[in-house]
């Protein structure tokens, strides 16, 4: 299974250009989509889910061209989608909600549907709360119901938009592990602005900003983009000078340890540090600002 986007554009009726010529190839496995709010990630996800139509360009999911209504329906049959803002029916129980979504997905055989619903509830550890109304669920429990509904039809393509937003650390880790497992034999597209989620799950990543893909490669390549630009600076209290972005600040006794990105004014108290994915991403974002050029590593 492969998803191919060619010169994809989307302009909303208010003349807002959400996507500007996006080209991507997404193959089986976990694929991360990073970008700030308003980068166009959700629009891209909605186009892939067959909800919105692009203004221009081509989207192929396997052999299905999303320009055709019939192909969109075919893609929806093999799709699992977890939207960023997951609306639910608060008066239904988790079991009833999943049963209803399963009906919408076309699982008409009652026995098979019930078995699938119960299996999914078990997968997200909600068997004990299956018959409680959704309005009594916590944010984390609702996200778990969300992932359960996305998996009901055993999708070949799973699209999840900000799946870990609002989850506690333990739930986030469990969720990430679940996504990684699922990515073994299907396309899992994970959109987020939480870099750590991508770092822990994806081999390949694309970074979007202002409707364009500014990076497409492996997470290793993205880390390498910041190589030589990350510094550890120790000061007595004053902030590091120079063309730098402060990544972290830790107080240790009378000293402050800064981790910075860019070029410190003096290298006297600065030591080079190994970059992480977050710094690779930040370096890329920094390069997009008018004062900075594109980094040579990208």
């Amino acid at each position, binding site marked *: 299974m492969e998803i191919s986007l060619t010169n994809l554009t989307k302009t909303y009726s208010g003349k807002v250009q959400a996507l500007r010529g996006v080209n991507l190839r997404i193959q089986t496995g976990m694929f991360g989509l990073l970008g700030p709010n308003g980068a166009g990630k959700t629009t891209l996800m909605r186009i892939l889910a067959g909800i919105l139509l692009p203004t221009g360009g081509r989207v192929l999911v396997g052999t299905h061209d999303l320009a055709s209504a019939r192909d969109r*329906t075919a893609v929806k049959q093999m799709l699992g989608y977890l939207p960023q803002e*997951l609306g639910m029916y608060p008066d239904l129980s988790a079991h009833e909600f999943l049963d209803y979504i399963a009906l919408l997905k076309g699982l008409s055989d009652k026995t098979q549907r019930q078995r699938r619903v119960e299996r999914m509830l078990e997968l997200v550890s909600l068997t004990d709360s299956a018959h409680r109304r959704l309005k009594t669920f916590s944010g984390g429990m609702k996200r778990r119901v969300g992932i359960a509904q996305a998996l009901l039809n055993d999708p070949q393509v799973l699209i999840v938009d900000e799946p870990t937003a609002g989850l506690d650390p333990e739930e986030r880790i469990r969720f990430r592990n679940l996504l990684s497992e699922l990515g073994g034999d299907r396309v899992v597209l994970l959109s987020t602005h939480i870099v750590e989620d991508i770092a822990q799950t994806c081999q390949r990543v694309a970074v979007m900003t202002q409707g364009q893909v500014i990076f497409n490669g492996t997470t290793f390549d993205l880390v390498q983009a910041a190589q030589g630009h990350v510094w550890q600076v120790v000061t007595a209290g004053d902030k590091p000078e120079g063309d730098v972005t402060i990544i972290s600040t830790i107080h240790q006794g009378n000293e402050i340890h800064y981790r910075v990105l860019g070029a410190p004014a003096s290298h006297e108290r600065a030591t080079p540090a190994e970059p992480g994915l977050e710094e690779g991403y930040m370096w890329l974002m920094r390069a997009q600002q008018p004062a900075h050029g594109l980094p040579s590593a990208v």
Partner: protein
Amino acid sequence: MASLALSWNRLRYELRLLGIGAFLLPLGIVVMYLGFALFARAGAFRNGGTAAEAEAHLQMARGLLALLENGLPLAAGLLAAVAVHQDTAIELHLSQPVSYRGTALQRLGLVLLWALLVVSATSAVVIASGYWVFPVGGFERQLLWLAPLLCLATLGAALTLLLRSRVASSAVLGMLWIAQFIFHPMFMENGVLLRIYLFLSEEIFPDILQVSRSAWYDAWLQNRLILLAVAFVLLGIVIVLLGRYEALLGGEQ
């Protein structure tokens, strides 16, 4: 045709998602109008005299006519406004192989069916109890309530989809409904407005009992048929609007 196949299980869920309130509203309207009609009837009796009984009967008939022509159609309009756009999980639904348009039309169909059941039953009771005094029979009896009911229901649905808010659409629908009462002389005097006046039967009753049928019948029938045509046009608009997913999602996010 999967979207059209409303299985029993789907039907059960759609009814639950619409909520019990949707089904109680027409019944509440019946009780309210019945109360007004009984009050008017009692008032006529209080006047005393030999004509009191006839007057009381007429008042009751008029109250029930109002229930059929403007009370229950308003309920249908408000229900339709809710039915087409109350999906809290709309984005999820739009990503399913079953079309959202199909689901919304099924929900609209369910509330219309319920409104039609209530109004048919009410109409049958009115006829059986001898309070149907409006001088038409057969299918024309159904035209009396069917035309404004379908008109207000499709208008309610279209307004909700255009305004993207069931609260706003209910308010606009209510204002249009009230405007029909307030500006009734304007509707009656203007040839074009007369043809789309929703509450024409109530307006001309009971005066038409004193004149020949030829004096009012053609204009009344034409009005009902035009209202039905307007309802079908509005239904077409609703069907088109339900296919505009971008607008249903609230446009650019």
